[in-house]
């Protein structure tokens, strides 16, 4: 399998370490790692040129390096610390910069067969809402199988996490890895419904322009083709 890990922070703290435990539990795989902001140190400027042509984005090359790997992967792992009860700003910025991958714009067919895990830790409250910020984006990318794992660790560093809690995390990651290996990623009713809504919009010319409509047309999605079905 190919696994891509996208870390919402540069440092290797608790969240990173939990992601690593999960990767180790998944066995021998081809693993690619990215760190934000290191690998994409830009804010979206809101210029909207990606709507016309993605390659016009001022940060296209850096972004493409990450997203090509994402498209190639079977499993995506996102880790984000919790800042102010939400995902980290670097992760939020990454989501901003990849918004043409949303179903409302130009979703990629490969997403509809992927599995993803989103991990977040917080000293106190908020880990689950940080997770939700990312799982929500993944849903709109079309990823059908997304598991979230938010944990209050009552510590600011990985070495300060209590041994009992670490033991619990180890167990959770082992069982999550097992689930990931055995389960199927099939587009569920929610994804299919959202897709059909977006299809209707494109059909009625309510999308973000001719370029987008042409993309949907070329993919055959305005006809009978569906991204979750083998051609």
């Amino acid at each position, binding site marked *: 399998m190919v696994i891509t890990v996208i870390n919402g*922070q*540069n*440092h290797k*703290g608790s969240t990173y370490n939990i992601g690593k435990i999960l990767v180790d539990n998944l066995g021998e795989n081809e693993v690619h790692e990215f760190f934000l*902001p290191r690998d994409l*140190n830009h*804010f*979206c*400027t*809101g*210029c*909207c040129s990606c709507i016309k042509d993605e390659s016009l984005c001022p940060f296209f090359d850096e972004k493409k390096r990450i997203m090509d790997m994402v498209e190639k992967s079977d499993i995506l792992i996102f880790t984000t*610390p919790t*800042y*102010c*009860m*939400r995902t*980290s*700003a*670097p992760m*939020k*910025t990454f*989501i*901003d*910069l990849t*918004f043409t991958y*949303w179903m*409302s714009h130009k979703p990629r067919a490969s997403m509809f067969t992927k599995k993803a895990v989103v991990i977040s830790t917080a000293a*106190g409250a908020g880990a689950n809402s940080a997770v939700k*910020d990312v799982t*929500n*984006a993944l849903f*709109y990318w079309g990823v059908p199988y997304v598991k979230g794992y938010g944990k209050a660790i009552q510590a*600011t560093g990985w070495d300060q996490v209590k041994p009992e809690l670490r033991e619990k995390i180890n167990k959770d990651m082992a069982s999550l890895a097992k689930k990931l290996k055995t389960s199927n990623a099939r587009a569920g009713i929610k994804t299919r419904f959202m897709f059909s809504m977006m299809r209707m919009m494109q059909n009625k010319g*309510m999308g*973000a322009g001719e370029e987008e409509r042409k993309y949907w047309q070329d993919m055959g999605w305005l006809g009978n083709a569906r991204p979750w079905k083998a051609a």
Partner: protein
Amino acid sequence: MKITVINGTEKHGVTYRLKETFLEPFKGKAEITEFYLPKDGPGFCTGCTTCFRNGESRCKDAECIQKIEKSMLESDLLVFTSPSYVMHLTGAMKALLDHFGYRWMPHRPLKEMFGKRAVIITQALGAGETSTAKDIKDSLSWWGISYIKICKFKLMSEISWDKIDEKKRRQMTNAMSKMARKFLSVDYNKKAGTSLITKAKFYAVRMLQTRLGKENPEYTDYKYWKANGWLGSARPWKAA
């Protein structure tokens, strides 16, 4: 009076127009300081937790953050504007708010914030204006601000101001002017009241700090709460 405006984007688009409409009647009457993100902001928070442990002055972005904080502290009214990016606030605004994590009530809130007034201006194409406003409101209310008004708008298919239809434009500018009149009529010599929810949050954190102080009397946040007298009978919303 003084107003601090924090803009979640440098773009002069729809959000900018709405903000300008709001500020129009204040011009000449108020001293307005504006920050445009990411240009005037701090970049990303690295999560080093130095602000929590050793104090905010040791943050790598201290200079920038303290400048913005000083401006907010001196202001009677705070204005936050952000377009909706993928149903939430812009990354640039999130990066700024992350830096103010240490001013959340569970850490070291400023007592001045408890009496301040704020307005959030946002708009989204299709969907997301409500969640964007909430993203910002969450931070402000955890800083201790109770009086927060939200101006949010939903656009359909057009994002350039000139192409939005006349009726919609008028509707938006009218709403902004109305909100401006509301804020113009406020007597800024009086502090805004503190809501029950804010007080409840304060008391919950007070209990937490008391407990943390027993475990470690040298804990930075605990010492701050103690120095403010909040563990005794002083309250940030009451005049000393």
